């Protein structure tokens, strides 16, 4: 669907329109705060690129977002909308911190770095996956909607983190904010670019991205893609409902858990209650923004991180524009991308008529809600030949 054939001018018109709307909204918001948009723009650029350190910060910010977004590819492609990255990051970070500190007390803090890294990364992955297992189990066994269960579990994870940082993980020193003990020096991820905080997590992102580029060419990708629109056909291809939900949600949980370790070992070297910093939700947005393509996701993650870093620059340049302007822009951007994605799908229906088949083979699955299946990049509903159906598909199965 990304071939040149689909590039019709209307889509570019919509894309251009989205860019203009985003710029206009940004300018309006800056004017509303009583500042000059051009001064704001200069502050934004300075915030990203005025020094190598700033560029490093941009990369540091992009790493967790990119990992979350990349590992969400299978779940989103299967139409499983896991919004639990925040909680999974927290559990990964708790387990990684606990394991690293435990290793340091048992074996001494002078162990070689790689031992700490592998133990920490594995602990993070286990923590994140385990926390993703629960909503997957609920979805498989009782059709509990995964959007709601993962959202609710995020609050549970935040509560558990708060309790951990007050009790068994609490730093022995008296501190103003709840935090864990500092990790031993060897356990910290070394910096990759001197003079910045940019750590080796960047290499990890590239590895994961390459992994998903290869996976997109595999049979697994096809099964997952078919599952989102034709579960029965997917079953014949060897993808059961349970298997798909478990495997895709475990992958995203593992990725989020890994991020938990990366944030602790690479950035702060101790665990704070603000460990996620919203990267779980940003990761979801970036996965959609990048069109579930690994390269697109890495670019979108850099862009998101640049927005956040640039907004801080804008705040200090203008003095009156709060850096939360970045969040508004992200929302507008996500709205715009959803509209463009809808336009992207339209020519696809013409080019590939097989997509336009009415889903008659769907079995009536008992659901606890209207089906909340995310069906990017092309759900069956929008390629549906007639207009009678509302935009959300799946009602045919009720």
């Amino acid at each position, binding site marked *: 669907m990304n071939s040149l054939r689909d590039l019709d001018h209307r889509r570019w018109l919509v894309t251009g329109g989205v860019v203009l709307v985003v710029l206009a909204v940004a300018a309006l918001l800056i004017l509303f705060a009583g500042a000059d948009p051009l001064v704001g723009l200069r502050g934004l650029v300075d915030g990203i690129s005025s020094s190598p350190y700033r560029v490093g910060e941009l990369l540091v910010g992009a790493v967790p977002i990119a990992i979350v977004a990349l590992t969400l590819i299978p779940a989103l492609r299967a139409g499983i909308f896991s919004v639990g990255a925040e909680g999974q990051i927290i559990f990964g970070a708790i387990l990684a911190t606990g394991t690293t500190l435990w290793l340091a007390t048992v074996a001494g803090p002078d162990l070689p770095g790689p031992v700490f890294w592998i133990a920490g990364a594995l602990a993070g992955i286990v923590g994140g996956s385990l926390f993703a297992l629960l909503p997957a189990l609920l979805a498989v066994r*009782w059709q509990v909607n995964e959007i709601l269960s993962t959202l609710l579990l995020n609050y549970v994870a935040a509560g558990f983190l708060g309790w951990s940082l007050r009790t068994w993980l609490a730093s022995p020193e008296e501190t103003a904010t709840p935090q864990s003990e500092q990790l031993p020096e060897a356990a910290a991820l070394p910096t990759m670019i001197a003079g910045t905080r940019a750590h080796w997590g960047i290499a990890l992102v590239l590895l994961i991205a390459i992994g998903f580029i290869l996976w997109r060419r595999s049979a697994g990708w096809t099964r997952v893609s078919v599952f989102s629109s034709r579960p029965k056909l997917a079953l014949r291809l060897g993808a059961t409902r349970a298997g798909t939900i478990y495997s895709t949600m475990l992958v995203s949980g593992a990725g989020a858990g890994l991020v938990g370790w990366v944030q602790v070992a690479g950035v702060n070297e101790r665990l704070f209650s603000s460990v996620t910093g919203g990267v779980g939700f940003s990761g979801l947005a970036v996965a*959609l923004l990048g069109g579930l393509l690994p390269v697109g996701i890495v670019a979108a993650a850099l862009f998101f991180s640049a927005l956040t870093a640039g907004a801080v620059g804008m705040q200090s340049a203008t003095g009156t524009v*709060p850096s939360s302007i*970045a969040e*508004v822009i992200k929302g507008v951007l996500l709205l715009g991308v959803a509209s463009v*994605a809808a336009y992207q799908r339209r020519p696809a229906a013409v080019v590939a008529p097989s997509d336009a088949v009415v889903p008659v083979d769907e079995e009536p699955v008992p659901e606890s809600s209207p089906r909340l299946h*995310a069906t990017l990049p092309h759900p069956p509903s929008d390629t549906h030949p007639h207009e*009678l159906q509302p935009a*959300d598909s799946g009602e045919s199965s009720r």
Partner: protein
Amino acid sequence: MSAELWVAILAGAIALSAPLVLAGVGESFVERAGRINLGIEGMMILGAFAGVYVASTAGPWAGLLAGIATGLVLAALMNTVVHRLHANEVVVGLAITVLGLGLSTYLFQVWIPSGQTNVSVETVPRVPVPLLSDLPLLGRILFVQSPIVYATVLLAVAAWAVMRFTRFGLQIRAVGTDPVAAALRGVRTRAVGSNSLLLGGALAGLAGAVITVGTIGSFTPGITAGRGYIVLAIVIMGRSTPVGVALGALLFAFLQSFSLLAQSTGLQLPSEVYQTLPYVVTLIVLVLSSRARVRSVLRKASLA
């Protein structure tokens, strides 16, 4: 735990449930029409901000109206993108939430730059119902509440009547059950879907304003704390009926009120247990109710 404390907890629960019932009734219309509004959280928090902002100059009632207007605007935006541009409903809903959270924080920080003291507005005063408020215990729990609470009860009853007895209600149910058949019988499915979404948005915005103008009197970024998602869970648990929604809202609000007040009592549990309790119980009820649903479907299947 004294009786005094229980009265306070229960009266607090009634007050806290009002915004959940308002947004939940709105969302039940949306879900009955076969759609879903994942932007509730964003609509609520922007409504909460707009409510305080307007109430600071024009009084609490104008603030509530501002909340409704804000919810309507966001719902109209969502409606345009979903219906006109055929964008994915789930993604657009989440985008609206991101937008609402971001915009409310941004506008609040422009209005009150960090370092300045937060603006506190006059809230809607409580009105004891004559005679009924003199009842022992029950009087102080149920009948010394804000007029918003009484209005919410009336609205829930009205919503039930609209869904049950009016053309609009019938059309919504028809569209939600079988859009193709409804369209063939002359129901304008798109208009019905849009109207229910606008209604849901207006009530979500109002619910946000009720949180700030109705009880707290001031806005802080992130003040809704995921209550928009709780509303979605409540509507699913309550099977999109006003009574079910009200029961779900009361359960969550009771736990919330309990967690706010029970920390001062003898139970020596960590404060985080109280804070996460409402979310845990909501999840458990969500599981139980969907399991029950599966069972009832199985029973029907075996009878057939």
